[in-house]
């Protein structure tokens, strides 16, 4: 399983990438493999306030709907519009083109509670 070294991870299988004051959020390679064929993604709305650990998005495979939890608290600034036409990007490129939303974190220190790549790798192995 791919676990990029430059990201931080939630126990619930989301990742964040910090670029300046923007945080990009997606689901991990492990999550997409567990979910299998993703056929639908419902990102949060731009402007929505999300809370760390609370449901912010939903992705669905043929078989099941799964909640995606926001790793941090803050305001959604952009969502990945490509996912509505091509939700399979979540399967094929979960750390790249399959990102789900961007946000401004209201409590950036929350990121310290997230998992390092090493700890997350241990969790899923």
């Amino acid at each position: 399983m791919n676990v990029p070294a430059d990201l931080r991870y939630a126990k619930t299988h989301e990742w964040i990438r910090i670029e300046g004051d923007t945080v990009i959020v997606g689901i991990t390679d492990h999550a997409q493999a567990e979910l299998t064929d993703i056929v639908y993604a419902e990102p949060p709305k731009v402007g929505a306030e999300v809370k760390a650990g609370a449901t912010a998005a939903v992705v669905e495979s043929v078989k099941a709907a799964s909640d995606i939890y926001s790793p941090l608290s803050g305001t959604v600034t952009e969502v990945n519009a490509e996912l509505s036409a091509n939700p399979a990007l979540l399967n094929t490129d979960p750390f790249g083109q399959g990102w789900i939303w961007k946000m401004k974190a209201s409590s950036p220190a929350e990121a310290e509670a997230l998992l390092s790549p090493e700890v997350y790798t241990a969790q899923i192995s």
Partner: protein
Amino acid sequence: MSDPDTLKHSPLEAAHIACGARMVEFGGWFMPVQYSGIIDEHKAVRSASGMFDISHMGEVTVSGSGALAWLESLLTNRVGKLALTRGQYSLMLDEGGGVIDDLILYRSGEQEYFLVINAACRDIDLAWMCGRLPADGSVVLNDLGDAYAAIALQGPDSERILRALAPGCDVPKRNGIAPLPGFEGAVPSLVARTGYTGEDGFELFVPVAKGVVLWSALLAAGVKPCGLGCRDTLRLEMGYPLNGSDLSRERTPLEAGLGKFVSLDDPEKPGFTGRAVLEAQRAAGLPARLIPLKLTVQGPPLRSHYPVLSEGVAVGETCSGALSPSLGEGIAMAYLPGALSTPGTALEIEVRGRRYAATVSTLPFYKKPEA
């Protein structure tokens, strides 16, 4: 997931795991939900061939001089019209006309019938049937559920594969049953030309010790292993009901749109449990009907228990639902007032608080393209 230790296990379980299956609980059994992926498996069955472990389903034989009359009293379809080696879909109802189980029965001998019942209903069905056996011994019931392994071979290539697998097999016509040569054992090996996918195909019943041999032979013939995931999308595209989802003790087969399997107008059909309720319901008008729905906009996959609205008012909820892999559209079934049953009627389906436009469709949702 439930603890696998409390579940019942298929004789093919090791073969599934060797094929990369993802295993889940279904009807008290530990069964494969998918191998290569639901969409991939679904398309294999529509275009070539796939195989499903159906060992969790129950097999029961009913025989004796009283077998016919007794089955007539339990089941909705007229059993007496079955010629030797022929099968029919039928329903077993409670006194209130509610569905205990839907099943297929074959006339396997002059006075012998072979019944295939749902996995989750095996104990309930057997208790119901055994509790109604005549005291005079004229009907003998044998539960062979644990003696058989069963595999459904489905898809347009099925007949070619079966003929290569079992040379000399007198391949049955649709809804017929015949011996399956080459897999002899403790119970008779049988092949029935039935299925739950809308494709041509067969259900193969072999002694439990021959299950893995059959699975391996089909695998070697290039048949794709398929799990319960695509079994569900395939059957829903055809509008075939799933007991526990579309059928229940709370609904009659008339409400479920299964009237053609209920011999109410056949003068040769004797009385059966639940009949009076069905006749009264037919006279008074059905309180609800199981209606096929399709999303008319891009939306999430449909699932059970989503509210259905007409002009903003909730009128029911979805039973079965899916994103149809063949059509790429959301499809579902829902019990709704009969006034809303006309195809084209505009409705809405609510998913996580958002409403999506839908329309009353017709069955089957999926029609095979003309060859």
